[in-house]
């Protein structure tokens, strides 16, 4: 198990390879379909949010507000990342992302951007909303909640030992590609 703590420098990210199990500690920002489309169309991030050397988490959490007004994450697993494939590569480039957390993997354009700009794809366990919510220690802020709705908002989350697996690294390797190719070959033998 590798510990990855903020700041997420290019050096730390480049050292990771496919198959590494990693625990992330630091700030991550959620962003999913609406945010990616908005940024890709030239939208600006709120002044308080910076993706530079940051990590974006494809997640639409269940969040409740307690009596003191503090946000409490009730459930927060990853959503399917491939929907962001049309946008992700350019957002990595434009905003200087170092990591993308999601599930299901992404395609060639994202893989190429990871290689060129020094970013990795972290696969969280889909559906493990409670285990992952336990790792979210604080939610200092939320942006675009009104515009995009709660699941699509940018939630700022302070995470501790958030468990993920590197399935696409910054050296052009993708576990998803490897498993897909092997399963195509295995199925061909069984048809």
């Amino acid at each position, binding site marked *: 198990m590798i510990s990855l703590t903020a700041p997420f420098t290019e050096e730390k990210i480049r050292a990771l390879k496919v198959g590494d199990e990693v625990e992330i500690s630091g700030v991550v920002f959620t962003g999913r379909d609406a945010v990616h489309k908005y940024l890709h169309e030239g939208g600006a991030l709120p002044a308080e949010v910076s993706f530079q050397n940051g990590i974006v988490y494809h997640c639409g959490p269940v969040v409740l507000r307690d009596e003191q007004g503090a946000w409490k994450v009730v*459930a927060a697993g990853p*959503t399917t990342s491939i929907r962001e494939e049309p946008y992700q590569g350019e957002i990595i480039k434009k905003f200087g992302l170092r990591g993308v957390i999601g599930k299901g993997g992404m395609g060639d354009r994202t893989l190429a951007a990871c290689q060129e700009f020094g970013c990795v794809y972290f696969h969280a366990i*889909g*559906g493990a909303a*409670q285990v992952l919510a336990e790792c979210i220690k604080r939610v200092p802020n939320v942006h675009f909640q009104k515009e995009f*709705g709660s699941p699509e908002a940018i939630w700022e989350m302070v995470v501790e030992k958030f468990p993920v697996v590197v399935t696409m690294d910054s050296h052009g390797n993708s576990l998803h590609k490897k498993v897909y190719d092997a399963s*195509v070959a295995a199925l061909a033998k069984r048809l």
Partner: protein
Amino acid sequence: MSVLKDSIVELIRKTSAEIPDDVQQSLLASLKREQAGTIAESALKIIQRNIELAQSKSQPLCQDTGSVIFYVDAPRDFDQAGFEETAREAVSAATKAGYLRQNSVDSITGRNDGTNVGPGAPVLHFHQHRSPEIKVRMMLKGGGCENVGAQYSLPIEKMKANRDLDGCRKVILDAVLQAQGKGCGPGILGVCIGGDRATGYEHSKHQFLRKIDDRNPNPELDRLEQDILETGNSLGIGPMGFGGKTTLLGVKIGVLNRVPASFFVSVSYMCWAFRRQGVTLSSEGKIQQWLY
């Protein structure tokens, strides 16, 4: 609050927070199969921890609490319209309580009013029967697994899939291949052979009401189910698509008649976080028995 509304909220809570026993047993068996020290094993261990946490905290197993789908079997004097109204109130209350995510969006404006109630939400299927029993079953089906569902119109020349059971087998396995880990595997397949484009998908989802370890009473379909389960698990896709021995936990196949010109095979995929539960209700709406 009415008795019926309380009962439906409780049904939603339990469905969202607790994995049914048949699914849990199947997941535990898959954990034993995976090789120690692999990321497939790690994934299944996290899944087990998640199941325990969700149950103990009474919180959603998965944050995507999905489409809310009810299947109601009731006698002919049952107040269907009244049930529907109460179910909508219960869904809204369960959302406020955090058992459901604010998960229902206007398809044109993108607006999410936070209630989970709107056109087509929740989904209700009513079935009148001659027994006095009132049976309410429900499923929460997340978007990730719904998105990897597929419908095939046979024949498909490039797949050499003809209008026969072998053709069905080929396209069902193609659906498994295309899904990879994106539907949050290990998954369960619900399949319908026949029907039209609407009833085919509907009937494929209906298969998820069967228990994972049951067997199809039709011997031909039983053979096909077992074959696809075994073949699917030999592909090495594994939990979450990380590689490994468990790609599927179960395969359930139903059949509907078709018109001579059409031959659809509809495949629905259910993630490991298989949230389905059911109850029988008294005539006052009180929960009498849990079904899974």
